């Protein structure tokens, strides 16, 4: 019972600020503080939401975006994981690849858009765009995770005459996995942010970003706000799920932190 109460207060606390903003927004529109022709009122947004819900375009586009993000995220994070492990395991490759990786990392993603369009005019370019952004945090976190495996644990492996493969699967991988998961969480939330950019830079594949961009052209600001809220909501849900996963798989590390 107590636990339930605590959870309820948590939810209430978390909802306090959004509710306040909503009320302020409502009042500002109601008493014409906001320029009504430019900034939609809550009722405009609700009506707009109802409209796109009814003609099916909302879920059609949201679905496209979510699938696109998952594709980009899977491609980027898998690649990132492999690169991170490789850089962490081989000092030679670390020296060889890290400088160029750090240089590439500094290039803002939209700058790649023209090149990506050369690769493919279709879905592939958008997925690659997301994958590139999704890759970086997984590389960095996995690399750090591998590098910070305790030397002490490796000595235990040496005592038991572990092979290199066994050392990797029994010590390095489990020990660095919590860091990788942190990378994956960051990666997923970056992917979700990038999908809108991908859909704006490389259009005509549908998606929530493209829908918003089109609505802007038609001055349908109410639908732009619908898009913003939907993006925030899905992003929140993704982050929440990843946090749960992170806790689940790195229980031993989180507990260590708490006990300190």
């Amino acid at each position, binding site marked *: 019972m107590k636990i339930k109460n605590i959870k309820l207060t948590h939810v209430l606390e978390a909802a306090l600020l959004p509710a306040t903003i909503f009320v302020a927004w409502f009042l500002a529109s109601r008493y014409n503080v906001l320029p009504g022709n430019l900034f939609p009122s809550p009722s405009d947004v609700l009506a707009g939401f109802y409209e796109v819900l009814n003609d099916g375009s909302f879920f059609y586009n949201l679905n496209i975006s979510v699938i696109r993000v998952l594709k980009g995220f899977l491609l980027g994070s898998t690649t990132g994981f492999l690169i991170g492990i490789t850089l962490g395991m081989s000092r030679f490759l670390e020296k060889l690849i890290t400088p160029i990786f750090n240089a590439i990392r500094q290039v803002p993603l939209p700058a790649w858009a023209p090149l990506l369009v050369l690769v493919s005019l279709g879905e592939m370019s958008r997925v690659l765009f997301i994958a590139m952004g999704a890759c970086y945090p997984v590389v960095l976190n996995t690399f750090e995770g591998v590098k910070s495996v305790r030397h*002490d*644990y490796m*000595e*235990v492996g*040496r*005592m*038991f*005459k572990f092979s290199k493969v066994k050392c990797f699967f*029994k*010590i390095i991988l*489990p*020990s660095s*996995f919590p860091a990788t998961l942190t990378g994956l969480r960051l990666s997923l939330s970056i992917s979700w942010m990038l999908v809108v950019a991908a859909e704006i830079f490389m259009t005509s594949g549908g998606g929530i970003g493209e829908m918003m961009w089109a609505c802007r052209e038609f001055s349908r600001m109410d639908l732009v706000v619908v898009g913003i809220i939907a993006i925030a909501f899905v992003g929140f849900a993704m982050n929440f799920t990843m946090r749960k996963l992170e806790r689940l798989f790195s229980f*031993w*590390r989180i*507990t*260590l932190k708490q*006990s300190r």
Partner: protein
Amino acid sequence: MKSTGTLAVKNVSKKFKSQEGEIHVLDDINLSVKSGEFITIVGLSGCGKTTLLRLIVGLESDYAGDILLDGRKLNGPSLDRGIVFQDHRLFPWLTVEKNVGLGIVGKTDAEKKEIVQNHIELVGLKGFEKSYPYQLSGGMSQRAAIARSLVNNPKILLLDEPLGALDALTRMYMHKELERIWKKESITMIMVTHDVDEAVYLSDKIVVMSARPGKLQKIIPVPLSRPRDRASIDFAQMKEKVLEEFMLHTEQNFNYSI
């Protein structure tokens, strides 16, 4: 002849290279350990006792002299030597059971399960098989670490201040347990410590080391019968004898007046 865990350390010296030049850690160490003996190496911090242990176990190489196990020269770590580290070094992502079974090689799953269970029972951790290291106390963690180090039936078990971080009462309890395990497994044990009481309670021989460079100062046999009585006069005198080596003894002991 069956190999049984006799150890010979002959003229062993070890230097570490640092930026300021060479540091002489061990200087001409000679030591022989009989099969089934319990040896403790006592010395101040920095006297090289842990280094000596790491040489014997094979984690450090590049030394002068010879270390022979059952007459054969050592070559890196091997399963016939186990070690219990000062910090238990259990893998925090594995249960006690999985940690203990970590080093078992060349056994079927059923055999493995049995070995793990036997060793968990040997160290008195029955019922904690599924616990994670963070759920264990310091003493329990070291028990698990001892179990883990014994699964391959090593001939020699090396212990690097395994009880150093425990509270005094738990430590005394662990002394009894360690003695029991040592007897049951009839294994050679070499333990590094700076606790003289611990050394006298457990050892057949106490090796006193002096520092910078680490030298063997004296080997003191402990001829007391087991189990040893901490309250006995013999025990106290033995302790004084060891403390004398560190200039820490009381000048007039056992002045009885009626």
